[in-house]
């Protein structure tokens, strides 16, 4: 592989992959916390809607959702998403649904007495969530979120099928240019592996800090 291919395609591809990862992770986190807390809401309608969202978006394939947003939505609403945005939306919405289950599980794992204590202090539901439940639930979520983030990173490779120039797409172009697959695909796999390694290491550190704040010693 020549230096030109590396500079013009692979490096920008890695950058696009990182951008996709950050943007869709932000969207997924927003969806996860909104839908996840909605699933512990008092009103049955809110719980049902949140549950329905989770089941539909977890039920279908992220790739099909991506194609759907890209090809079906435009004639439906009359405007077209650029592939990058369709990709971020599809990844954020579907991985957010998985994240919602993590948030719900962690909120439910907070001892019931904590919830009652919040009520006894006549906190509003919002204060109870923000000051009592979430600070205890968030460190519990970190290991699962770490796995989900690695899954999301792997999910970003799907965007290459929409023609977004991420590192997988760069690999495809380099293969066409050089007529050799072994080298470039090995490099691509290693790139993903290294990004995943950085994610897992930093999430471990984050977990240790979160637990230390709660006075729990992490393993």
């Amino acid at each position, binding site marked *: 592989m020549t230096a030109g291919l590396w500079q013009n395609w692979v490096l920008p591809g890695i950058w696009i992959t990182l951008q996709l990862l950050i943007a869709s992770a932000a969207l997924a986190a927003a969806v996860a916390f909104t839908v996840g807390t909605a699933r512990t809401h008092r009103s049955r309608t809110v719980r049902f809607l949140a549950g329905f969202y989770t*089941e*539909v978006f*977890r*039920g279908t*394939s992220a790739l*099909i959702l991506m194609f759907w947003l890209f*090809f079906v939505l435009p004639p*439906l609403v009359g405007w077209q998403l650029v592939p990058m945005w369709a990709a971020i939306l599809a990844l954020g919405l579907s991985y957010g649904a998985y994240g919602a289950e993590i948030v719900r599980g962690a909120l439910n794992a907070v001892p019931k007495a904590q919830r009652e204590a919040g009520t006894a202090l006549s906190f509003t539901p919002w204060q109870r969530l923000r000051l009592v439940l979430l600070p205890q639930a968030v460190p519990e979520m970190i290991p699962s979120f770490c796995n989900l983030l690695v899954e999301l990173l792997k999910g970003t490779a799907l965007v*290459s099928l929409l023609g977004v120039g991420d590192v997988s797409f760069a690999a495809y172009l380099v293969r066409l240019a050089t007529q050799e697959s072994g080298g470039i695909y090995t490099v691509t796999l290693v790139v993903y592996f290294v990004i995943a390694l950085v994610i897992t290491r930093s999430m471990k550190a984050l977990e240790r800090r979160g637990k230390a704040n709660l006075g729990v010693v992490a393993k």
Partner: protein
Amino acid sequence: MNWDWSAVADFMPRFWDGLLVTLQVLVLGSLISFSLGLVWALGFRARSRLVRWPVHAVTEFVRTTPLLVQLFFLFFVLPEWGVQFSALTTGTLAIGLHYSTYTAQVYRAGIDAVPAGQWEAAKALSLPRHRTWLTVILPQALRRIAPALGNYVIAMLKDTPLLAGISVLELLQQSRLESAATFQYTEPLTVIGVAFVLIAYPASLLVRTLERRLVH
């Protein structure tokens, strides 16, 4: 918006063909991932570090890199090495290999959860090693891990559309062919999207029931 039922009807023959291929990949991929996963899990417990370390490294690598890139890797690189498989075979192998690294973790957790007393009892009865595994440990471990394996079958189902990337004629590829022929994108894509929810949701309910029955 204009939803055209006749486009749905036109798509149905291709839909059934695609569904058949999707299910075929799912069944064979599951078998590969279940058996290969067990091999990895036994590798994790090997006495020699020379076995344990490479098994950890390989499974960790396969697990944290994208299935799509692995698909392309196998599809383009195997022929360079002189191994020629059809797209369908390559896809099934890739998905089986990828998910075997997940099932390996499941097996490992299941085997670790078998109480230590069971190992000691087998030793006290001086059972040979293969009988300890086959008649004492694995039957107890498998009962606990069946639901978790079921969850990965559902996850695998949702990853089968990736095989469209190497032109396997599964559901997504069939819908792309239909759209390319008729310029109707809405109906085929929506039909297969709904089909995935209709298969995955009842399947996840089934796994949950299984979990209640077997684990608790």
